[in-house]
């Protein structure tokens, strides 16, 4: 956990170094002056003196401090990490800071080579973040970053979440320069697993990691992260935006869909589509479309989304070919096919893959429906009901479905198919496991409820609610008071 008294760092956008911004070595600074030319190679020298930032902490405040050597010294001296972080964030104006941090030492030495990855995690983070995002910064070996991701000290890194974000953003870029974006996956994974206090925390690294996995099609690599559902959002650990949550769950859905793990894909797409908000994002619409398709593939029908979904989304979906596709699914195959062939939307929106999978599985769902109506049926009857011309094709399909235990049936030589009820088997362990999990959940919920009942927000609202209700009770009956009391609980939980 981060230090509680740590001030929330100001949001820092990616530094955009501009050529006109000058780095001026101080004339009084003896050790730096001869080498400053090399130090700020990319910069043109001017005479203007950069303004010394106001540093509230114990950091040295003279202009001389604006040099990498001093900074390296500051990093290596033994000060509390939060103090160091404060210093590193404020020793010079933003642009200057990044340029200094991204530079080399006067003697051409790489400052990183002087620093210890474990002891100086915080300093290295600052230098890495600056170097990854400064144009013309000295070459940063990919291996160094990869090693850092494996060895850094998370506790230190958590003092400066925004630098971690910058590092994470920079890793895929660096990997691209190194020739293969997929190289970024491993370092990102290390960074993520080590930085997050627990795997249930959402960090800004999550969406970056998953996007890298998805865009390089290394879907399986994402599974260790996806296996832990996100339950904790802590903005002091990571400077999250709502988009991080959306992108993470959307990309998670993509990973699972690509691996054909439909149940999990459904859950991720649903989380993305149903994330709270006063408006709806385009990515949520995309998630909803994919959710619908995945549901068709996996269950043969759609289930209505939870009612807390933003109402605009289902309404928008209604006008699209997706909706027409869902309505015709699975029995009207000719119509389905004409929708798929007639619409370019699926290609332009890159959902054609899922659409085709759904289309391919349509006859299976039709057959499955038949099993609940019939005990025996001839292959030709099935072919007619499903709308497939050749009996052989149906035979193959049914054999495949029996083999994958989608249906339990028997195919006799004369072409009669007999359906059975699927055997239901339960082991005691299964039941026990489910029970244990349910109890776990109940405890968790009870805890949360107690926490909530203690929270200041709830108490103020509840007290206010009670006052209002007692006013209302003068002309209403007491049943109404109950209602408003419950309303408050809902209010806090879901709105």
């Amino acid at each position, binding site marked *: 956990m981060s230090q509680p008294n740590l001030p929330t760092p100001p949001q820092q956008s990616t530094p955009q170094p501009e050529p006109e911004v000058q780095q001026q070595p101080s004339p009084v600074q003896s050790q730096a002056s001869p080498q400053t030319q090399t130090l700020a190679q990319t910069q043109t020298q001017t005479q203007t003196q950069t303004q010394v930032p106001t540093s509230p902490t114990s950091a040295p405040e003279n202009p001389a401090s604006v040099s990498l050597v001093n900074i390296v010294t500051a990093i290596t001296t033994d000060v509390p990490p939060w103090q160091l972080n404060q210093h590193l964030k404020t020793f010079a104006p933003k642009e200057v800071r990044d340029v200094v941090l991204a530079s080399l030492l006067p003697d051409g030495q790489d400052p990183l080579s002087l620093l210890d990855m474990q002891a100086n995690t915080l300093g290295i983070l600052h230098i890495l973040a600056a170097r990854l995002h400064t144009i013309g910064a000295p070459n940063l070996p990919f291996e160094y970053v990869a090693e850092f991701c494996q060895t850094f000290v998370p506790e230190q890194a958590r003092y400066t979440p925004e630098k971690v974000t910058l590092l994470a953003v920079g890793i895929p870029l660096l990997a691209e320069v190194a020739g293969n974006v997929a190289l970024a996956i491993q370092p990102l994974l290390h960074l993520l697993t080590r930085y997050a206090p627990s795997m249930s925390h959402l960090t800004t690294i999550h969406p970056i990691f998953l996007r890298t996995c998805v865009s390089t099609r290394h879907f399986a690599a994402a599974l260790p992260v996806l296996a832990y559902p996100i339950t904790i959002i802590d903005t002091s650990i990571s400077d999250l935006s*709502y988009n991080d949550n959306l992108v993470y769950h959307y990309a998670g859905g993509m990973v699972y869909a690509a691996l054909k793990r439909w149940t999990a894909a459904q859950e991720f797409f649903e989380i993305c589509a149903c994330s709270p908000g*006063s408006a709806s994002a385009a990515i949520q619409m995309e998630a909803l479309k994919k959710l619908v398709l995945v549901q068709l593939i996996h269950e043969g029908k759609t289930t209505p989304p939870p009612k807390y979904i933003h109402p605009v989304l289902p309404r928008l979906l209604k006008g699209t070919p997706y909706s027409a596709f869902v309505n015709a699914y699975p029995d009207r195959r000719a119509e389905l096919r004409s929708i798929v062939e007639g619409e370019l939307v699926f290609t332009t929106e890159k959902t054609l893959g899922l659409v085709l999978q759904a289309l391919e599985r349509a006859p299976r769902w039709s057959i499955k429906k038949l099993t609940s109506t019939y005990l025996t049926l001839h292959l030709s009857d099935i072919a007619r009901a499903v709308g497939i011309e050749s009996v052989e094709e149906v035979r193959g399909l049914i054999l495949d479905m029996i083999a994958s235990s989608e249906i339990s049936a028997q195919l006799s030589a004369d072409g009669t198919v007999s359906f059975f009820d699927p055997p239901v088997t339960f082991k005691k362990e299964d039941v026990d496991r489910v029970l244990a999990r349910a109890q776990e959940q109940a405890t968790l919920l009870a805890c949360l409820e107690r926490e909530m009942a203690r929270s200041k927000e709830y108490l103020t609202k509840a007290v206010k609610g009670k006052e209002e209700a007692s006013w209302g009770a003068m002309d209403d009956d007491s049943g109404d008071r109950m209602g408003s009391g419950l309303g408050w609980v809902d209010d806090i939980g879901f709105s």
Partner: protein
Amino acid sequence: MMDVDPIDSEIANQYTQPPRRRQARPVDDAHPFDLDAYIASRTTVDRLLAITASCPSIAPQALKLAFNHIYRLRDTSLVQAALAAYASAATYPEGQGLPPPGDVVVVDAAWVEEVTKKNLAERTKLEVELKSYTNNMIKESIRMAHRDLGEHYRATGDFASALKHLTKSREFCSTSQHLVIEQRNYSHISSYIYKADAALESTTAATSGSAEGAATAVSAQPTSKKPSPEREQVQSKLDFAMALSHLGQGNYEKAASLFLRLDPPDQLGDWVGKLVAPGDIAIYGTLCALASLSRSAIKAQLLRNPVFSAYIEQEPYVRDVIQAYMSSDFKTTLDILSKYSTRHYIDIHLGTHVNDVTQHLRQTAVVLYFQPFETIRFDRMAAAFGWSIEEVEREVVALIQIGQIQGRVDSQNKILRAKKTDHRAELFEHAMKTALDIQSTNRKLLLRMRLQQVDLVVKSPKITLKRDQTQNLLDSPMAIVDLS
């Protein structure tokens, strides 16, 4: 339900529409139908026109009768409508041999012109009257003028205007209701009935209250003239109207219970004969009941209902239908129904619903029949219902798919088997599934809660764009990857 917007031209259209689903209704020995007897009790030209349009075999006869009636009325548009209906009858294959309309009736052009003129004159007169009353602000006279104008429009067939004026006049609501039923605009009936009910309430209150109260309440005005037994009569008229509106909206169960609760025929007053015959009520009530109610409900509400049996007396075959149904003799039931199908199809209120009602009845019959069996061969069912084996199979499969029959079909051996459910396994399965569902829902909701707690919610990029959601959607941040 037919969309009847009672503007003259549309009435004509309605009959000239090429019959898509409607077929010509045969009238022959197998489908007995006595036109004279049917019409004798009612004088609605509408019904005759409906018959003309759908039964080629008796179209000339019906057309002649219709014209006899039309000449007694003042609605000239009906002449056109009648001719159009006849023409549409002639389009049926069975109607090819029909004599041209000129041979059957002679359109009296002079009459048409004269009546049109007279109508116009009267309307102008009434409108002038209304205007002057409005100027004089005499409430009572305005009301009367509205009523007169409404009655006039009604007589000349312009139901929309009539309704407008009658509503304005706040005449005792049963009048405007009567009108709504005539134009078969079922969806409107219920709202009028509520109004009328309210009017009734206020009436009773007013009459029991002081005399001044009655004088001030405009809606209570007519009641002061009406003695109390008439109140009951109006009430039963309202009940009937309500029942009819339920039937019109395909709400058979409610319609059935309302029909079965109707008061004896004499309570309906002048509506009997003018609007509906007791026999009709018997048919409507019985069919709705058979289609929607359970056996025990039918027994309690229909068979042991002395009032309703008075209605049934009017149409003896209805009694046969009920008897056959109650003794599970479904073959006879369906036979009788199909025998009298013409009678039902050409009824203006029932016509559009016969198919639905019959379908309901067939389904309940099949469900009832299968109930005691664990397995049954289709040929036995076919014999019991008088259907072919394919028909039985089709019906049964449809019922299984909508969940009415818990069974499965052995299509090879043509056997229907009841489904055996292992309740214990089912329970376990359900419990496990619910557990998983709840867990995942919990997780999702908790995440949602956390997101909201730290205000990590989706926001519009700019406040000005808030209205324009599509704009918002254009700012997609995500590279989309195809999963093919």
